[in-house]
Protein backbone atom coordinates (compact mmCIF):
# COMPACT_ATOMS: atom_id res chain seq x y z
CA UNK A 1 0.00 0.00 0.00
CA UNK A 2 1.40 3.39 -0.96
CA UNK A 3 0.86 6.51 1.09
CA UNK A 4 -1.30 8.95 -0.83
CA UNK A 5 0.45 12.19 -1.65
CA UNK A 6 -1.32 15.36 -0.68
CA UNK A 7 -0.61 19.04 -0.14
CA UNK A 8 -0.65 20.76 3.29
CA UNK A 9 -3.92 22.48 2.30
CA UNK A 10 -5.48 19.13 1.44
CA UNK A 11 -4.41 17.76 4.81
CA UNK A 12 -5.92 20.74 6.63
CA UNK A 13 -9.21 20.50 4.76
CA UNK A 14 -9.44 16.76 5.39
CA UNK A 15 -8.57 17.13 9.08
CA UNK A 16 -11.24 19.81 9.43
CA UNK A 17 -13.79 17.66 7.60
CA UNK A 18 -13.12 14.77 10.00
CA UNK A 19 -13.98 17.03 12.94
CA UNK A 20 -17.58 17.57 11.78
CA UNK A 21 -19.90 14.80 12.90
CA UNK A 22 -23.03 13.79 11.07
CA UNK A 23 -26.21 15.62 12.05
CA UNK A 24 -24.39 18.79 13.11
CA UNK A 25 -25.12 22.33 12.01
CA UNK A 26 -22.26 24.56 10.88
CA UNK A 27 -21.97 28.17 9.77
CA UNK A 28 -19.24 28.30 7.16
CA UNK A 29 -17.43 30.96 5.22
CA UNK A 30 -15.79 30.81 1.84
CA UNK A 31 -12.54 29.01 1.04
CA UNK A 32 -11.07 26.16 3.11
CA UNK A 33 -13.92 25.99 5.69
CA UNK A 34 -16.46 25.66 2.92
CA UNK A 35 -14.37 22.98 1.25
CA UNK A 36 -14.07 21.12 4.57
CA UNK A 37 -17.82 21.27 5.20
CA UNK A 38 -18.61 20.15 1.64
CA UNK A 39 -16.13 17.30 1.96
CA UNK A 40 -17.61 16.17 5.28
CA UNK A 41 -21.07 16.26 3.76
CA UNK A 42 -20.01 14.16 0.80
CA UNK A 43 -18.16 11.60 2.93
CA UNK A 44 -18.75 11.02 6.63
CA UNK A 45 -21.48 13.54 7.47
CA UNK A 46 -24.25 13.43 4.86
CA UNK A 47 -26.62 15.06 7.38
CA UNK A 48 -24.40 18.05 8.04
CA UNK A 49 -26.40 21.26 7.59
CA UNK A 50 -24.46 24.14 6.06
CA UNK A 51 -25.49 27.67 6.91
CA UNK A 52 -24.12 30.98 5.65
CA UNK A 53 -24.29 34.23 7.59
CA UNK A 54 -26.14 36.22 4.92
CA UNK A 55 -29.08 33.80 5.11
CA UNK A 56 -28.38 30.68 3.02
CA UNK A 57 -29.40 27.34 4.57
CA UNK A 58 -28.82 23.83 3.27
CA UNK A 59 -27.78 24.51 -0.34
CA UNK A 60 -26.66 21.89 -2.80
CA UNK A 61 -23.47 23.83 -3.45
CA UNK A 62 -22.82 23.59 -7.17
CA UNK A 63 -19.31 25.00 -6.56
CA UNK A 64 -17.69 26.99 -3.80
CA UNK A 65 -19.26 30.40 -3.25
CA UNK A 66 -17.09 33.49 -3.72
CA UNK A 67 -19.08 35.46 -1.14
CA UNK A 68 -20.91 34.13 1.93
CA UNK A 69 -23.87 36.09 0.57
CA UNK A 70 -23.80 34.95 -3.03
CA UNK A 71 -26.51 32.87 -4.65
CA UNK A 72 -24.51 29.64 -4.39
CA UNK A 73 -25.15 29.73 -0.64
CA UNK A 74 -28.82 28.94 -1.24
CA UNK A 75 -28.66 27.20 -4.60
CA UNK A 76 -31.38 24.54 -4.44
CA UNK A 77 -31.32 25.30 -0.74
CA UNK A 78 -33.74 24.50 2.02
CA UNK A 79 -34.24 28.12 3.00
CA UNK A 80 -33.09 31.55 1.91
CA UNK A 81 -33.57 33.70 4.97
CA UNK A 82 -32.03 36.73 6.68
CA UNK A 83 -28.75 37.35 8.46
CA UNK A 84 -30.69 37.88 11.69
CA UNK A 85 -32.34 34.47 11.38
CA UNK A 86 -28.91 32.80 11.06
CA UNK A 87 -27.41 34.75 13.96
CA UNK A 88 -30.47 34.20 16.16
CA UNK A 89 -30.35 30.50 15.39
CA UNK A 90 -26.77 30.53 16.67
CA UNK A 91 -27.72 32.64 19.67
CA UNK A 92 -30.47 30.31 20.79
CA UNK A 93 -28.04 27.39 20.77
CA UNK A 94 -28.91 25.48 17.61
CA UNK A 95 -25.55 25.70 15.85
CA UNK A 96 -22.69 23.37 16.73
CA UNK A 97 -19.78 24.73 14.73
CA UNK A 98 -18.43 27.74 12.99
CA UNK A 99 -15.16 28.32 11.15
CA UNK A 100 -13.25 31.51 11.73
CA UNK A 101 -9.92 32.96 10.70
CA UNK A 102 -7.89 36.03 11.40
CA UNK A 103 -4.60 37.83 11.00
CA UNK A 104 -3.60 36.93 14.57
CA UNK A 105 -4.56 34.33 17.15
CA UNK A 106 -3.38 34.08 20.76
CA UNK A 107 -3.05 31.25 23.29
CA UNK A 108 -6.69 31.59 24.36
CA UNK A 109 -7.98 31.41 20.81
CA UNK A 110 -8.87 35.09 20.65
CA UNK A 111 -8.78 36.38 17.07
CA UNK A 112 -7.84 39.64 15.42
CA UNK A 113 -9.27 40.60 12.04
CA UNK A 114 -9.49 44.34 12.67
CA UNK A 115 -6.05 45.98 12.53
CA UNK A 116 -2.29 45.58 12.80
CA UNK A 117 -0.46 48.22 14.84
CA UNK A 118 -0.54 49.58 18.34
CA UNK A 119 -2.80 52.59 17.85
CA UNK A 120 -6.47 52.11 16.94
CA UNK A 121 -6.70 55.63 15.52
CA UNK A 122 -3.66 55.09 13.27
CA UNK A 123 -3.32 51.44 12.40
CA UNK A 124 -0.38 50.14 10.42
CA UNK A 125 -2.84 48.04 8.45
CA UNK A 126 -6.56 48.40 8.71
CA UNK A 127 -8.28 45.06 8.12
CA UNK A 128 -11.98 44.54 7.32
CA UNK A 129 -13.16 44.15 10.93
CA UNK A 130 -15.34 41.59 12.58
CA UNK A 131 -17.92 40.96 9.90
CA UNK A 132 -19.89 38.13 11.45
CA UNK A 133 -16.82 36.63 13.16
CA UNK A 134 -17.28 38.10 16.62
CA UNK A 135 -20.97 37.15 16.56
CA UNK A 136 -20.39 33.59 15.40
CA UNK A 137 -17.41 33.16 17.73
CA UNK A 138 -19.61 34.28 20.62
CA UNK A 139 -22.79 32.39 19.80
CA UNK A 140 -21.95 29.04 18.16
CA UNK A 141 -20.96 26.19 20.47
CA UNK A 142 -17.57 25.40 18.97
CA UNK A 143 -15.18 27.48 16.93
CA UNK A 144 -12.83 25.89 14.40
CA UNK A 145 -9.90 27.74 12.91
CA UNK A 146 -7.99 26.73 9.76
CA UNK A 147 -4.82 28.76 9.35
CA UNK A 148 -1.22 28.76 8.15
CA UNK A 149 1.09 28.38 11.13
CA UNK A 150 3.72 31.09 11.66
CA UNK A 151 4.96 33.48 14.36
CA UNK A 152 3.30 36.50 12.73
CA UNK A 153 -0.09 34.87 13.31
CA UNK A 154 0.40 32.94 16.54
CA UNK A 155 1.20 35.80 18.90
CA UNK A 156 1.50 36.37 22.64
CA UNK A 157 -0.71 39.45 22.51
CA UNK A 158 -3.17 40.47 19.83
CA UNK A 159 -3.05 44.00 18.45
CA UNK A 160 -6.86 43.99 18.72
CA UNK A 161 -9.30 41.42 20.10
CA UNK A 162 -11.95 41.23 17.40
CA UNK A 163 -13.51 37.90 18.32
CA UNK A 164 -13.58 36.39 21.79
CA UNK A 165 -11.84 33.09 22.36
CA UNK A 166 -11.41 32.27 26.02
CA UNK A 167 -10.44 35.97 26.52
CA UNK A 168 -7.94 36.00 29.39
CA UNK A 169 -8.62 32.50 30.65
CA UNK A 170 -11.00 30.27 32.59
CA UNK A 171 -14.36 31.86 33.43
CA UNK A 172 -13.72 35.00 31.37
CA UNK A 173 -16.25 34.20 28.64
CA UNK A 174 -18.96 33.57 31.19
CA UNK A 175 -18.04 36.76 33.09
CA UNK A 176 -18.41 38.72 29.85
CA UNK A 177 -21.92 37.28 29.44
CA UNK A 178 -21.06 34.91 26.61
CA UNK A 179 -22.93 31.59 26.60
CA UNK A 180 -21.41 29.04 29.00
CA UNK A 181 -19.90 25.99 27.36
CA UNK A 182 -19.06 27.72 24.10
CA UNK A 183 -15.64 28.67 22.75
CA UNK A 184 -12.70 27.75 20.54
CA UNK A 185 -12.44 24.02 19.85
CA UNK A 186 -9.74 23.14 17.33
CA UNK A 187 -7.09 25.10 15.47
CA UNK A 188 -6.05 23.25 12.35
CA UNK A 189 -2.80 24.65 10.99
CA UNK A 190 -0.27 23.87 8.32
CA UNK A 191 1.81 22.09 10.99
CA UNK A 192 -0.52 20.57 13.54
CA UNK A 193 -3.95 20.25 15.10
CA UNK A 194 -4.31 22.14 18.36
CA UNK A 195 -7.02 22.12 20.99
CA UNK A 196 -7.59 23.89 24.28
CA UNK A 197 -6.72 22.62 27.74
CA UNK A 198 -9.90 21.92 29.66
CA UNK A 199 -8.83 23.81 32.75
CA UNK A 200 -6.35 26.48 31.66
CA UNK A 201 -8.21 27.14 28.38
CA UNK A 202 -4.80 27.63 26.73
CA UNK A 203 -4.03 26.26 23.33
CA UNK A 204 -2.26 22.90 23.34
CA UNK A 205 -0.85 20.58 20.72
CA UNK A 206 -3.04 17.58 20.05
CA UNK A 207 -1.48 16.10 16.95
CA UNK A 208 1.47 16.85 14.71
CA UNK A 209 1.14 16.56 10.97
CA UNK A 210 3.29 13.70 9.61
CA UNK A 211 6.99 14.68 9.70
CA UNK A 212 6.51 17.77 11.87
CA UNK A 213 8.21 18.08 15.29
CA UNK A 214 7.08 19.83 18.47
CA UNK A 215 10.11 22.10 18.21
CA UNK A 216 9.12 23.19 14.72
CA UNK A 217 5.61 24.09 15.89
CA UNK A 218 6.90 25.91 18.97
CA UNK A 219 9.36 27.84 16.82
CA UNK A 220 6.48 29.14 14.71
CA UNK A 221 4.34 30.01 17.75
CA UNK A 222 4.75 33.24 19.71
CA UNK A 223 3.48 31.79 22.99
CA UNK A 224 4.33 28.72 25.07
CA UNK A 225 2.51 25.60 23.89
CA UNK A 226 1.80 22.56 26.03
CA UNK A 227 1.14 19.13 24.58
CA UNK A 228 -1.73 16.85 25.23
CA UNK A 229 -0.58 13.41 26.16
CA UNK A 230 -0.44 11.22 24.30
CA UNK A 231 0.52 13.56 21.49
CA UNK A 232 -0.69 12.00 18.26
CA UNK A 233 0.11 12.19 14.61
CA UNK A 234 -2.61 13.81 12.51
CA UNK A 235 -4.45 11.23 10.47
CA UNK A 236 -3.52 11.48 6.86
CA UNK A 237 -6.28 12.09 4.36
CA UNK A 238 -7.94 8.91 3.25
CA UNK A 239 -7.97 7.99 -0.40
CA UNK A 240 -11.74 8.48 -0.39
CA UNK A 241 -11.39 11.96 1.10
CA UNK A 242 -8.78 12.98 -1.43
CA UNK A 243 -10.73 11.64 -4.34
CA UNK A 244 -13.93 13.41 -3.29
CA UNK A 245 -12.08 16.62 -2.48
CA UNK A 246 -10.33 16.73 -5.84
CA UNK A 247 -13.15 15.47 -8.00
CA UNK A 248 -16.33 16.83 -6.40
CA UNK A 249 -15.50 19.58 -3.94
CA UNK A 250 -12.78 21.62 -5.63
CA UNK A 251 -12.36 20.43 -9.22
CA UNK A 252 -11.09 23.86 -10.27
CA UNK A 253 -8.45 23.70 -7.51
CA UNK A 254 -9.46 27.12 -6.07
CA UNK A 255 -8.39 26.05 -2.60
CA UNK A 256 -6.28 22.96 -2.99
CA UNK A 257 -4.18 24.64 -5.64
CA UNK A 258 -2.90 27.12 -3.04
Amino acid sequence: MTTPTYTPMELMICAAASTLEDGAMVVVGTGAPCAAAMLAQKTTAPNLTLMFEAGGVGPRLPRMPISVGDSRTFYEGLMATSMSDIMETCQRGMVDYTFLGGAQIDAYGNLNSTMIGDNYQQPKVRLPGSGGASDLGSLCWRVLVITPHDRRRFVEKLDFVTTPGYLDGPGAREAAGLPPGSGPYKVITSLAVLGFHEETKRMQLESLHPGVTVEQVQAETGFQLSCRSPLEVTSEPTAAQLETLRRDVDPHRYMIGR
Partner: protein
Amino acid sequence: MSTRGKGSLFVEPDCDAARQWFREKPKRMSDKVMSVAEAVRRFVADDDYLASGGFGGDRIATALLHEIVRQRRQGLSFAGHTATHDFQILCAGNDTGRGQLLKRVDIAYIIGLEARGLSPHARRVVESGQIELCEWTNYTLALRFQAASMGVPFLPVRGFAGTDTFANSAAARVTCPYTEQELTVVPALWPDVAVIHVHESDCFGNCRIRGTSVSDWHVARAAKKLIVSCERLISNEEIRRDPTATTIPFYCVDAVCHVPCGSYPGNMPYEYYSDEEHLREWLTVERDFEAYLAFVDRLIFRSTDFEEYLNRCCGTAKMQDLRNQELYPS
Protein backbone atom coordinates in the same frame (compact mmCIF):
# COMPACT_ATOMS: atom_id res chain seq x y z
CA MET B 1 -15.55 45.74 32.11
CA SER B 2 -16.63 49.19 31.02
CA THR B 3 -20.35 49.65 30.74
CA ARG B 4 -20.19 51.55 27.48
CA GLY B 5 -17.86 51.31 24.51
CA LYS B 6 -15.89 54.45 23.73
CA GLY B 7 -17.02 54.66 20.10
CA SER B 8 -19.15 57.60 18.97
CA LEU B 9 -22.85 57.46 18.28
CA PHE B 10 -23.35 58.90 14.79
CA VAL B 11 -27.14 58.77 15.16
CA GLU B 12 -28.95 59.35 18.46
CA PRO B 13 -31.30 56.48 19.37
CA ASP B 14 -34.20 58.88 19.88
CA CYS B 15 -37.40 56.96 19.11
CA ASP B 16 -39.63 59.98 19.52
CA ALA B 17 -37.75 62.09 17.01
CA ALA B 18 -37.94 59.14 14.60
CA ARG B 19 -41.66 58.73 15.30
CA GLN B 20 -42.21 62.35 14.38
CA TRP B 21 -40.35 61.84 11.09
CA PHE B 22 -42.35 58.74 10.22
CA ARG B 23 -45.59 60.48 11.14
CA GLU B 24 -44.89 63.15 8.58
CA LYS B 25 -43.60 60.86 5.85
CA PRO B 26 -46.11 60.89 2.94
CA LYS B 27 -48.10 57.66 2.81
CA ARG B 28 -50.18 58.05 -0.29
CA MET B 29 -49.87 55.33 -2.92
CA SER B 30 -48.41 57.71 -5.48
CA ASP B 31 -46.31 56.88 -8.53
CA LYS B 32 -42.69 57.12 -7.35
CA VAL B 33 -40.92 56.02 -10.50
CA MET B 34 -38.08 58.38 -11.38
CA SER B 35 -34.57 58.36 -12.79
CA VAL B 36 -31.60 57.42 -10.65
CA ALA B 37 -30.28 60.96 -11.00
CA GLU B 38 -33.53 62.49 -9.78
CA ALA B 39 -33.89 60.04 -6.89
CA VAL B 40 -30.39 60.81 -5.61
CA ARG B 41 -30.85 64.55 -6.15
CA ARG B 42 -34.08 64.58 -4.18
CA PHE B 43 -33.41 62.06 -1.44
CA VAL B 44 -29.68 61.97 -0.67
CA ALA B 45 -28.40 65.11 1.04
CA ASP B 46 -24.94 66.11 2.17
CA ASP B 47 -24.22 64.91 5.73
CA ASP B 48 -26.88 62.19 5.52
CA TYR B 49 -26.37 58.84 7.20
CA LEU B 50 -26.46 56.26 4.37
CA ALA B 51 -27.19 52.53 4.48
CA SER B 52 -26.75 50.18 1.55
CA GLY B 53 -28.75 46.99 1.05
CA GLY B 54 -27.64 43.53 0.01
CA PHE B 55 -24.36 41.98 1.05
CA GLY B 56 -21.42 43.97 -0.28
CA GLY B 57 -21.17 42.35 -3.68
CA ASP B 58 -24.54 40.60 -3.74
CA ARG B 59 -27.80 42.34 -4.64
CA ILE B 60 -26.32 45.82 -4.26
CA ALA B 61 -27.75 49.07 -5.59
CA THR B 62 -24.76 49.81 -7.83
CA ALA B 63 -26.49 52.41 -9.98
CA LEU B 64 -27.61 54.43 -6.96
CA LEU B 65 -24.18 54.22 -5.32
CA HIS B 66 -22.47 55.40 -8.51
CA GLU B 67 -24.89 58.30 -8.75
CA ILE B 68 -24.22 59.36 -5.16
CA VAL B 69 -20.52 59.47 -6.05
CA ARG B 70 -21.22 61.19 -9.36
CA GLN B 71 -23.32 63.90 -7.71
CA ARG B 72 -20.46 64.43 -5.25
CA ARG B 73 -22.32 64.18 -2.00
CA GLN B 74 -20.17 65.29 0.93
CA GLY B 75 -19.79 64.36 4.57
CA LEU B 76 -21.88 61.20 4.56
CA SER B 77 -21.99 58.73 7.41
CA PHE B 78 -22.20 55.10 6.34
CA ALA B 79 -23.18 51.74 7.80
CA GLY B 80 -20.42 49.34 6.83
CA HIS B 81 -22.49 46.21 7.20
CA THR B 82 -20.50 43.73 5.16
CA ALA B 83 -19.74 46.54 2.80
CA THR B 84 -17.41 45.27 0.10
CA HIS B 85 -17.84 46.52 -3.44
CA ASP B 86 -20.44 49.03 -2.26
CA PHE B 87 -17.89 50.55 0.12
CA GLN B 88 -15.29 50.46 -2.64
CA ILE B 89 -17.62 52.49 -4.89
CA LEU B 90 -18.26 55.10 -2.20
CA CYS B 91 -14.53 55.44 -1.54
CA ALA B 92 -14.21 56.79 -5.08
CA GLY B 93 -15.68 59.95 -3.56
CA ASN B 94 -12.78 60.36 -1.13
CA ASP B 95 -9.24 61.46 -2.00
CA THR B 96 -9.99 61.69 -5.70
CA GLY B 97 -9.97 65.47 -5.90
CA ARG B 98 -13.67 66.03 -5.24
CA GLY B 99 -13.86 66.64 -1.52
CA GLN B 100 -14.69 63.90 0.94
CA LEU B 101 -17.84 61.89 0.38
CA LEU B 102 -17.41 59.70 3.48
CA LYS B 103 -16.91 61.28 6.87
CA ARG B 104 -17.95 58.71 9.46
CA VAL B 105 -18.34 54.95 9.21
CA ASP B 106 -19.92 52.38 11.51
CA ILE B 107 -17.77 49.36 10.71
CA ALA B 108 -18.72 45.75 10.75
CA TYR B 109 -16.81 44.78 7.62
CA ILE B 110 -15.26 47.17 5.12
CA ILE B 111 -12.16 47.43 2.92
CA GLY B 112 -12.15 43.71 2.20
CA LEU B 113 -13.94 42.03 -0.69
CA GLU B 114 -14.16 38.68 1.10
CA ALA B 115 -12.01 36.04 -0.62
CA ARG B 116 -11.08 38.53 -3.34
CA GLY B 117 -8.72 40.54 -1.12
CA LEU B 118 -8.46 44.08 0.28
CA SER B 119 -9.21 47.27 -1.65
CA PRO B 120 -6.06 49.42 -1.85
CA HIS B 121 -7.99 52.67 -2.26
CA ALA B 122 -10.39 51.85 0.58
CA ARG B 123 -7.33 51.17 2.75
CA ARG B 124 -5.86 54.54 1.71
CA VAL B 125 -9.06 56.31 2.68
CA VAL B 126 -9.57 54.52 5.99
CA GLU B 127 -5.93 54.40 7.12
CA SER B 128 -5.44 58.12 6.41
CA GLY B 129 -7.39 58.87 9.59
CA GLN B 130 -9.76 61.27 7.82
CA ILE B 131 -12.79 59.09 8.61
CA GLU B 132 -14.21 58.73 12.08
CA LEU B 133 -14.81 55.06 12.85
CA CYS B 134 -16.95 53.10 15.25
CA GLU B 135 -16.63 49.29 15.50
CA TRP B 136 -19.53 46.84 15.26
CA THR B 137 -20.18 43.35 13.96
CA ASN B 138 -22.48 42.17 11.20
CA TYR B 139 -25.12 41.01 13.65
CA THR B 140 -24.96 43.97 16.02
CA LEU B 141 -25.23 46.40 13.12
CA ALA B 142 -28.16 44.37 11.77
CA LEU B 143 -29.66 44.50 15.25
CA ARG B 144 -29.31 48.28 15.32
CA PHE B 145 -31.43 48.47 12.16
CA GLN B 146 -33.87 46.04 13.73
CA ALA B 147 -34.23 48.21 16.86
CA ALA B 148 -34.94 51.22 14.64
CA SER B 149 -37.45 49.32 12.55
CA MET B 150 -39.17 48.18 15.74
CA GLY B 151 -39.21 51.73 17.12
CA VAL B 152 -37.31 50.96 20.34
CA PRO B 153 -34.07 52.63 21.48
CA PHE B 154 -32.03 49.45 21.94
CA LEU B 155 -31.96 45.67 21.61
CA PRO B 156 -29.97 43.10 23.60
CA VAL B 157 -27.40 40.61 22.33
CA ARG B 158 -25.38 37.92 24.07
CA GLY B 159 -22.22 38.12 21.99
CA PHE B 160 -19.74 40.85 21.33
CA ALA B 161 -18.68 41.54 24.94
CA GLY B 162 -15.18 41.28 26.36
CA THR B 163 -13.57 42.33 23.09
CA ASP B 164 -11.80 45.40 21.72
CA THR B 165 -14.62 45.44 19.16
CA PHE B 166 -17.02 46.16 22.03
CA ALA B 167 -14.59 48.66 23.58
CA ASN B 168 -14.46 50.66 20.33
CA SER B 169 -18.20 50.49 19.69
CA ALA B 170 -21.01 52.52 21.22
CA ALA B 171 -22.66 49.43 22.69
CA ALA B 172 -23.58 49.45 26.36
CA ARG B 173 -24.39 47.00 29.13
CA VAL B 174 -27.62 46.56 31.07
CA THR B 175 -28.69 44.15 33.76
CA CYS B 176 -31.50 41.76 32.87
CA PRO B 177 -34.32 42.38 35.39
CA TYR B 178 -35.18 38.66 35.33
CA THR B 179 -31.85 36.84 35.41
CA GLU B 180 -29.63 39.57 36.91
CA GLN B 181 -27.31 38.67 34.04
CA GLU B 182 -25.29 41.50 32.45
CA LEU B 183 -26.18 41.86 28.80
CA THR B 184 -24.88 43.89 25.89
CA VAL B 185 -27.33 46.26 24.23
CA VAL B 186 -26.94 48.14 20.96
CA PRO B 187 -28.55 51.47 20.10
CA ALA B 188 -31.18 51.87 17.37
CA LEU B 189 -29.89 53.20 14.06
CA TRP B 190 -32.21 55.12 11.74
CA PRO B 191 -30.35 55.84 8.47
CA ASP B 192 -31.37 59.12 6.89
CA VAL B 193 -31.43 57.31 3.59
CA ALA B 194 -31.02 53.76 2.36
CA VAL B 195 -30.53 52.36 -1.14
CA ILE B 196 -31.72 48.82 -1.85
CA HIS B 197 -31.80 46.82 -5.07
CA VAL B 198 -34.74 44.44 -5.44
CA HIS B 199 -36.02 42.01 -8.01
CA GLU B 200 -39.40 43.59 -8.58
CA SER B 201 -41.29 46.69 -7.57
CA ASP B 202 -44.54 48.27 -8.58
CA CYS B 203 -44.64 52.02 -9.26
CA PHE B 204 -45.68 52.70 -5.66
CA GLY B 205 -42.72 50.84 -4.15
CA ASN B 206 -44.24 47.52 -3.12
CA CYS B 207 -41.17 45.29 -3.55
CA ARG B 208 -40.23 41.65 -3.84
CA ILE B 209 -36.82 40.14 -3.09
CA ARG B 210 -35.90 36.55 -4.02
CA GLY B 211 -33.23 34.68 -2.12
CA THR B 212 -31.61 35.86 1.08
CA SER B 213 -32.84 39.18 2.40
CA VAL B 214 -29.65 39.78 4.45
CA SER B 215 -30.73 42.75 6.62
CA ASP B 216 -32.88 44.55 4.11
CA TRP B 217 -36.22 43.78 5.71
CA HIS B 218 -35.09 45.86 8.68
CA VAL B 219 -33.00 48.41 6.76
CA ALA B 220 -36.03 49.26 4.60
CA ARG B 221 -38.20 49.86 7.66
CA ALA B 222 -35.52 51.72 9.63
CA ALA B 223 -34.61 54.16 6.85
CA LYS B 224 -36.14 57.61 7.01
CA LYS B 225 -35.87 57.86 3.23
CA LEU B 226 -35.64 54.82 0.99
CA ILE B 227 -34.68 54.59 -2.67
CA VAL B 228 -35.15 51.24 -4.34
CA SER B 229 -33.83 50.19 -7.69
CA CYS B 230 -35.42 47.17 -9.33
CA GLU B 231 -34.65 44.66 -12.05
CA ARG B 232 -38.25 44.75 -13.20
CA LEU B 233 -41.09 47.21 -12.77
CA ILE B 234 -44.26 45.18 -12.32
CA SER B 235 -47.92 46.09 -12.04
CA ASN B 236 -49.75 46.65 -8.79
CA GLU B 237 -52.11 43.87 -9.92
CA GLU B 238 -49.17 41.47 -9.95
CA ILE B 239 -48.21 42.52 -6.39
CA ARG B 240 -51.79 41.93 -5.27
CA ARG B 241 -51.76 38.48 -6.84
CA ASP B 242 -49.32 37.31 -4.14
CA PRO B 243 -49.16 39.62 -1.10
CA THR B 244 -47.10 37.01 0.80
CA ALA B 245 -44.22 37.78 -1.55
CA THR B 246 -44.08 41.50 -0.70
CA THR B 247 -40.93 42.20 1.32
CA ILE B 248 -41.03 46.00 1.41
CA PRO B 249 -44.37 47.87 1.45
CA PHE B 250 -44.91 51.11 -0.48
CA TYR B 251 -45.12 53.26 2.65
CA CYS B 252 -41.42 52.74 3.34
CA VAL B 253 -40.39 53.84 -0.15
CA ASP B 254 -39.68 57.33 -1.51
CA ALA B 255 -38.38 56.56 -4.98
CA VAL B 256 -38.46 53.63 -7.40
CA CYS B 257 -35.81 53.43 -10.12
CA HIS B 258 -36.05 50.87 -12.88
CA VAL B 259 -32.48 49.62 -13.38
CA PRO B 260 -32.11 46.25 -15.12
CA CYS B 261 -28.80 44.60 -14.19
CA GLY B 262 -28.65 47.17 -11.39
CA SER B 263 -26.55 45.01 -9.09
CA TYR B 264 -23.77 44.54 -11.68
CA PRO B 265 -20.88 43.80 -11.12
CA GLY B 266 -22.41 42.19 -8.06
CA ASN B 267 -24.39 38.99 -8.03
CA MET B 268 -28.19 39.16 -8.38
CA PRO B 269 -29.80 35.90 -7.27
CA TYR B 270 -31.75 34.11 -10.01
CA GLU B 271 -30.65 36.80 -12.48
CA TYR B 272 -26.85 37.02 -12.99
CA TYR B 273 -23.67 36.08 -11.19
CA SER B 274 -20.99 38.54 -10.11
CA ASP B 275 -18.48 39.68 -12.73
CA GLU B 276 -15.32 38.51 -11.03
CA GLU B 277 -13.17 39.71 -13.87
CA HIS B 278 -14.36 43.29 -13.50
CA LEU B 279 -14.10 43.15 -9.70
CA ARG B 280 -10.52 41.91 -10.07
CA GLU B 281 -9.84 44.84 -12.39
CA TRP B 282 -10.98 47.30 -9.69
CA LEU B 283 -8.64 45.72 -7.15
CA THR B 284 -5.72 45.67 -9.56
CA VAL B 285 -6.11 49.17 -10.87
CA GLU B 286 -6.44 50.61 -7.35
CA ARG B 287 -2.83 49.72 -6.66
CA ASP B 288 -1.69 52.45 -9.06
CA PHE B 289 -3.25 55.71 -7.85
CA GLU B 290 -2.99 57.55 -11.18
CA ALA B 291 -4.47 54.63 -13.07
CA TYR B 292 -7.20 54.44 -10.46
CA LEU B 293 -8.10 58.10 -10.87
CA ALA B 294 -8.43 57.63 -14.62
CA PHE B 295 -10.46 54.44 -14.06
CA VAL B 296 -13.11 55.99 -11.80
CA ASP B 297 -13.09 59.15 -13.91
CA ARG B 298 -14.00 57.18 -16.98
CA LEU B 299 -16.38 54.68 -15.38
CA ILE B 300 -18.19 56.86 -12.88
CA PHE B 301 -17.56 60.59 -13.07
CA ARG B 302 -17.59 60.86 -16.83
CA SER B 303 -20.29 58.29 -17.45
CA THR B 304 -23.68 59.93 -17.80
CA ASP B 305 -25.46 57.11 -16.09
CA PHE B 306 -25.36 53.46 -15.12
CA GLU B 307 -26.29 52.32 -18.61
CA GLU B 308 -23.16 53.91 -19.98
CA TYR B 309 -21.08 52.22 -17.28
CA LEU B 310 -22.73 48.92 -18.08
CA ASN B 311 -22.02 49.30 -21.77
CA ARG B 312 -18.39 50.09 -21.07
CA CYS B 313 -17.81 47.13 -18.76
CA CYS B 314 -20.26 44.51 -19.79
CA GLY B 315 -21.60 43.88 -23.25
CA THR B 316 -24.57 41.66 -23.96
CA ALA B 317 -22.43 38.57 -24.50
CA LYS B 318 -20.80 38.92 -21.11
CA MET B 319 -24.13 39.58 -19.41
CA GLN B 320 -25.46 36.45 -21.06
CA ASP B 321 -22.48 34.56 -19.68
CA LEU B 322 -23.15 35.92 -16.17
CA ARG B 323 -26.79 34.85 -16.53
CA ASN B 324 -25.66 31.38 -17.49
CA GLN B 325 -23.24 31.23 -14.57
CA GLU B 326 -26.11 32.16 -12.28
CA LEU B 327 -28.77 29.85 -13.66
CA TYR B 328 -26.64 26.87 -14.65
CA PRO B 329 -23.67 26.83 -12.27
CA SER B 330 -21.21 23.99 -12.55
